[in-house]
């Protein structure tokens, strides 16, 4: 019989993984931002407070720039060790050194306040800027790739430094009336891989090894002003049917 490893406050690792699903954070009077409900257990004296709290005004001003997101995050402070986990997904910690990383909002679990959290221009993603440690979850282990690269939208976890994330559609497949019809109706067989995200330039792209998405955390609506993606400023376009891709069908006269 295998005897399970028994942890106590002394043997728990400090700011490291306990197993591939659980991460241990050591607090020594310091603070961490964490997403609501991801703490599973803790030793010591730790307080959890919602971000709307006046005492954290300065902290929030320097390291939390997503006001519409505030209700999903709490600040943990005190001293002790706490365990973080998320729906039995793999968790990993990453170190940023004067860098930047953009991550799908549902995948970020916790981060040190030395990092600044900002809403990405790309909807549904958050950007971390600065120096510090953060903890992210992924469905299956994370794979690091170098651009130039095209990735499946569902497998993308995040990216660092890449200046130009963009959509890529396989144009050849959709050429002509038949192609347009096929992409519109799905009849005639689609491989399901006609649409990818494309990354070029220097940087790193993080992928998870499954296409099952983690439920997205609403990052709040973007402000309604012209020039903001998804933020309106467009004149009334007809709602798109599922299966329609961008404005390609308009070009093909469909």
């Amino acid at each position: 019989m295998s005897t399970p490893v028994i942890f106590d406050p002394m043997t728990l690792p400090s700011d490291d993984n306990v197993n591939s699903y659980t991460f241990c954070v050591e607090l020594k009077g310091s603070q961490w931002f964490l997403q609501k409900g991801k703490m599973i257990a803790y030793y010591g004296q730790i307080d959890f407070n919602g971000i709307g709290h006046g005492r954290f005004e300065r902290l929030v001003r320097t390291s939390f720039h997503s006001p519409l997101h505030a209700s999903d995050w709490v600040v943990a402070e005190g001293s002790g060790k706490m365990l973080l986990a998320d729906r039995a997904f793999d968790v990993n910690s990453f170190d940023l050194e004067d860098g930047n990383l953009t991550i799908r909002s549902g995948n970020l679990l916790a981060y040190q306040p030395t990092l600044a959290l900002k809403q990405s221009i790309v909807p549904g993603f958050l950007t971390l800027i600065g120096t510090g440690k953060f903890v992210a979850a992924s469905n299956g282990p994370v794979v690091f790739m170098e651009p130039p690269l095209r990735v499946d939208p569902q497998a993308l976890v995040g990216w660092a430094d890449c200046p130009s994330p963009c959509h890529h559609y396989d144009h050849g497949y959709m050429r002509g009336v038949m192609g347009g019809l096929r992409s519109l109706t799905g009849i005639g067989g689609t491989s399901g891989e006609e649409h990818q995200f494309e990354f070029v330039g220097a940087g790193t792209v993080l992928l998870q090894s499954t296409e099952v998405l983690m439920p997205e955390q609403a990052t709040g609506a973007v402000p309604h002003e012209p020039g903001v993606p998804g933020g309106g400023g467009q004149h009334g376009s007809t709602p798109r049917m599922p299966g329609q891709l961008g404005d390609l069908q308009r070009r093909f006269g469909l």
Partner: protein
Amino acid sequence: MFRLQGSKTLAVDLTGDAVKAKNGSMVAYDGRMAFKKMSGGGEGLRGMVTRRLTGEQMEMMEVKGQGTCYFADRASEINLVSLHGEKLHVEASNLLATDAGLRTGTTFTGLRGGASGNGLFTTTVEGTGQAAIMSDGSAVVLRVTPQYPLNVDPGAYIAHQGRLQQHLQSGVNFRTLMGEGSGESFQIRFEGDGLVYVQPSERNTVGGDV
């Protein structure tokens, strides 16, 4: 004799003796086995009535025979627990198998159960032998000593053993009511001497959103 075959399958070697397991959890066996549904988990009429009343339902079967029997349930991770006369408290949904010699029963957990989304009652396993408990993702075993009490999220709690007092700690304050809750308002605090098993995943709990 319990052993793990991988981390998600329990293999039990039987030599004419019996083992209690969750109904329908057998995935394979070699040798000769007889499976018998145990009405009320072998706790007799009183146990049956208690379980029905408390909602701590547990369908168990008795497996008896010669050979090796394999158990698994929804690809949950399995943890083995050795008991030497002490009592193991476990949620009925997390109990996979126990030695036939272990007694199972139901106890009232107080307010804690209400917050963990598993009812107000929990299952106890008592005696000397082995038990197998399931968790969503590999469980972490945490030791509690008088100097180091432990706080656990009710949704992540699966089992505990030893001499532990537990009470529900609530951090509900005026800010929670204003919609600025911390999401960690309810915790179970364990004090005393023993082990607590937590899983890296949270069930949906009443307290989870507060």
